[in-house]
């Protein structure tokens, strides 16, 4: 998405007919606010540029570095916001970002039951399903059922920790490093860390699953 040019005068993305009234309404709102001097077009443009620059590749870099560098992992677990800044990443506006480490005995999964809080600076925009009513209701009450739907089955002796982001703290999961990845470079490791594995509803890719 980083090379998608956004021009306020023309719409490039296809809009379904059902959405055109909403699109017109949003544009009208922007016009009014700019005319009234509440915001400038530049404010909006910069914000859009930031949004489209966000992607899970940033979160994946944090994970890959943590996998290869135990001291970095320790810093990441202690203060993920500062650790992200250390790698030159933008951790976003939240003053506190917490990385949650999955281990042999603990698996984490993140949800926002009240709305859609999500570490979008490090993962890009949240997927529709994360914001959906079924995920928000079932992730807390039946998380193993949700994981099964996503194709993940945890052993009975693994403690499943569901984290409901109700406040300004943003949570990111550090998935477990897959087996047989010793020969991978840090970049290759980052390539197997998926967005869903950093939400906690998937495991990272096996090394052979990455597209050439």
């Amino acid at each position: 998405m980083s090379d998608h040019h956004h021009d306020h005068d023309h719409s490039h993305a296809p809009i379904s007919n059902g959405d055109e009234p909403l699109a017109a309404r949003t544009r009208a709102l922007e016009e009014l606010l700019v005319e009234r001097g509440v915001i400038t077009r530049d404010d909006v443009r910069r914000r859009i540029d930031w949004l489209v620059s966000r992607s899970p590749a940033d979160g994946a870099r944090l994970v890959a570095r943590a996998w290869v560098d135990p001291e970095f992992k320790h810093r990441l677990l202690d203060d993920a916001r500062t650790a992200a800044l250390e790698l030159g990443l933008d951790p976003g506006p939240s003053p506190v970002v917490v990385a949650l480490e999955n281990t042999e005995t603990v698996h984490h999964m993140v949800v926002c039951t009240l709305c859609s809080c999500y570490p979008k600076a490090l993962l890009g925009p949240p997927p529709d399903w994360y914001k959906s009513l079924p995920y928000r209701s079932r992730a807390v009450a039946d998380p193993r059922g949700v994981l099964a739907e996503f194709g993940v089955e945890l052993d009975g002796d693994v403690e499943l920790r569901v984290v409901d982001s109700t406040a300004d703290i943003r949570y990111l999961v550090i998935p477990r490093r897959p087996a047989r990845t010793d020969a991978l470079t840090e970049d290759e490791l980052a390539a197997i860390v998926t967005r869903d594995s950093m939400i906690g509803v998937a495991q990272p890719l096996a090394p052979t699953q990455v597209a050439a």
Partner: protein
Amino acid sequence: MRYRTGESVRVANRRHDGHHRTPGYLKGKIGIVERSHPAFTNPETRAYDGDGLPEQRLYLISVSQRDLWPEYRGAAADRLFVDVFEHWLEKAE
């Protein structure tokens, strides 16, 4: 800091009309303080053109899933972690 890591706390079973960030499923439940966060502006007043002051400390607390859901399908050790404001917590016996 009112509550320490490892301490048992109860989430207030309080009705609150208006915007607040304590989920209904958690009210009245007993949990353990897992970590304390800094203080943040109070969304309950900041949502109504207030300044959200005084700031309130946030705590990450964990509750046993079996204490939350009568029909919970999962491991006995499974837990739910939630950020709760200090003014929604009480000491548990």
